[in-house]
């Protein structure tokens, strides 16, 4: 397929095409510089920074409570998990003992966030391969999760519910019931996703064998999350470095060894089932207790370096705080999952067709502000 016969009479010429920053397939404002021969991609070069908001610089002047609110806006689809990452780092640094109740609630909300994120991804994935109806089915279920968030946290998307030391306030009395209702509802709706898209012949033909990433490459490119696990790289932080309440729940890490677009798709569908099972195990067992522990109004971390990783819907989010003992960090670094996953795009996309690139981008599940920070 990729062999080109070059003669003087029939010579193919590569040309350059600019995809983005405003393009339906780039999920925001990513810019890809493509070199194309006909329909076949010869080179992909991402150009980032169209939504670089200098969050790391801002953190150097903000208090730790303020930083939590900025992280919502990074990976806005896993906003709760981002908050949690910063809170965990601060709590570990201070050596705070977090109540069990907080841990369980955080875990349930994190899994709900993951479900919401994957629902959106599924909808957009379908749209990217041309099946527009999936978008509405994904959002139908996402709205229900947003209702739960809204009732408990007061916001639909950027929740700001975690604070260093616990939660901002206790859960809403309806929380348990609504979550149970939603889980019961979603268990009947998730098979619909398979009926509509997974089983479709065109979809399978479009995605199987496309954009293959080997395990070695997956590790070397630093990919994490469903992208890496589709290639056989076991990297679920919830399993390897358990935090919050993940050490007391039974769930499987979704993993495969094929590493093509279709497998990455399946990983996320499987993760949704696992999330449902985690919530099922925890929702009836929320322990009583305080919803936060008291911290100083001005949090000052001890001098030192602190690193905490959590598993967001896209992969491993690392928070690296270098503290000099003041109220703001000396240096704050977010290791965003999308940034590393995007670096593997070139490896996956070169040699495939323009339509494949869109499908590959969709399964990378890119959130551009998460990459640009």
């Amino acid at each position, binding site marked *: 397929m990729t062999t080109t016969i070059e003669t003087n009479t029939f010579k193919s010429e590569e040309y350059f095409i600019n995809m983005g*920053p*405003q*393009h*339906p397939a780039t999920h*925001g*404002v990513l810019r890809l510089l493509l070199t194309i021969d006909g329909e076949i991609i010869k080179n992909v070069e991402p150009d980032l*920074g*169209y*939504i*670089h*908001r*200098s*969050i790391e*610089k*801002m953190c*150097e*002047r*903000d208090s730790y409570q303020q930083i939590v*609110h*900025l992280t*919502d*806006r990074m990976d*806005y*689809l896993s906003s709760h998990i981002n908050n949690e990452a910063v809170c965990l780092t601060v709590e570990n640094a201070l050596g705070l003992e977090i109540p069990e109740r907080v841990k369980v609630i955080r875990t349930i909300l994190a899994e709900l966030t993951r479900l919401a994120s994957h629902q*959106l991804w599924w909808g957009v994935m379908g749209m990217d391969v041309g099946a527009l109806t999936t*978008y*509405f089915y994904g*959002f*139908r279920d*996402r*709205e229900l999760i*947003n209702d739960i968030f809204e009732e408990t946290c007061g916001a*639909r*998307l*950027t929740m700001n519910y975690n604070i260093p030391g616990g939660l901002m306030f206790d859960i809403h009395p309806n929380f348990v019931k609504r979550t149970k209702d939603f889980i019961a509802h979603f268990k009947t709706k998730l098979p619909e996703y398979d009926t509509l898209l997974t089983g479709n012949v065109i979809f399978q033909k479009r995605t199987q064998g496309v954009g293959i990433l080997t395990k070695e490459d997956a590790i070397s490119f630093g990919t994490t999350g469903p992208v890496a696990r589709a290639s056989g790289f076991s990297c679920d932080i919830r399993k390897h470095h358990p935090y919050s309440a993940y050490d007391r729940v039974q769930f499987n890490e979704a993993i495969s060894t094929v590493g093509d677009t279709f497998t990455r798709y399946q990983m996320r569908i499987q993760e949704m089932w696992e999330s449902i099972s985690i919530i099922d195990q925890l929702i009836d067992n929320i322990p009583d207790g305080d919803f936060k522990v008291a911290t100083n109004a001005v949090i000052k971390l001890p001098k030192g370096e602190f690193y905490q990783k959590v598993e967001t819907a896209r992969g491993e989010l690392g928070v690296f705080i270098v503290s000099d003992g003041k109220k703001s960090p000396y240096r704050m670094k977010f290791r965003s999952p999308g940034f590393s996953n995007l670096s593997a795009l070139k490896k996956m996309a070169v040699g495939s067709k323009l339509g494949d690139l869109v499908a590959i981008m969709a399964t990378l599940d890119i959130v*551009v*502000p998460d990459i640009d920070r």
Partner: protein
Amino acid sequence: MGIEKNELVNDFPGQIIPGGNGGNITITTLDKVINWGRSNSLWSLYFGTSCCAIEMMQTGAARHDYSRFGFEVARPSPRQADLIIIAGTIVNKMAPVLRRLYDQMAEPKYVIAMGACAISGGPFYYNTYSVVKGADHVIPVDVYVPGCPPRPEALLEGMMMLQEKIRTESMKHKVNPIDGFDQGL
């Protein structure tokens, strides 16, 4: 135009000068028809930079469904779009792109600034070296929808306010919103 504003006569000081010949009536009627068309068919451009884009998508999705008002035809090409919903932060690197997209759109064109970032820079106002402090530094904005991010209902309200604004337009006094913008007029 002058004929329409009879309700102002009572408490308007000084002399009212009537609008003149009947030509105005034709124009205002035509205005009404065209404004009705324009206000009910706002096709937006695919443009979302960050968090607000998700709420914009929610607005288009099944529960809120802005297609009821005829907004659902989102065009990927600026040539065919009537409306940019600036959903998210605009940074220094994106600003020229946004301006270019706006310039590529065909008249008449409208802009909604959705969310705190697009209005003023929002949470990214202080201590940041890369964020433009409001999309109206780049292009003229018609409607501002506050929130971080605004709820879908708020966006719908903003879009309906834009419809109302369009209904007051007149072809005779139509100015290109970008005229004089760069000079700070």
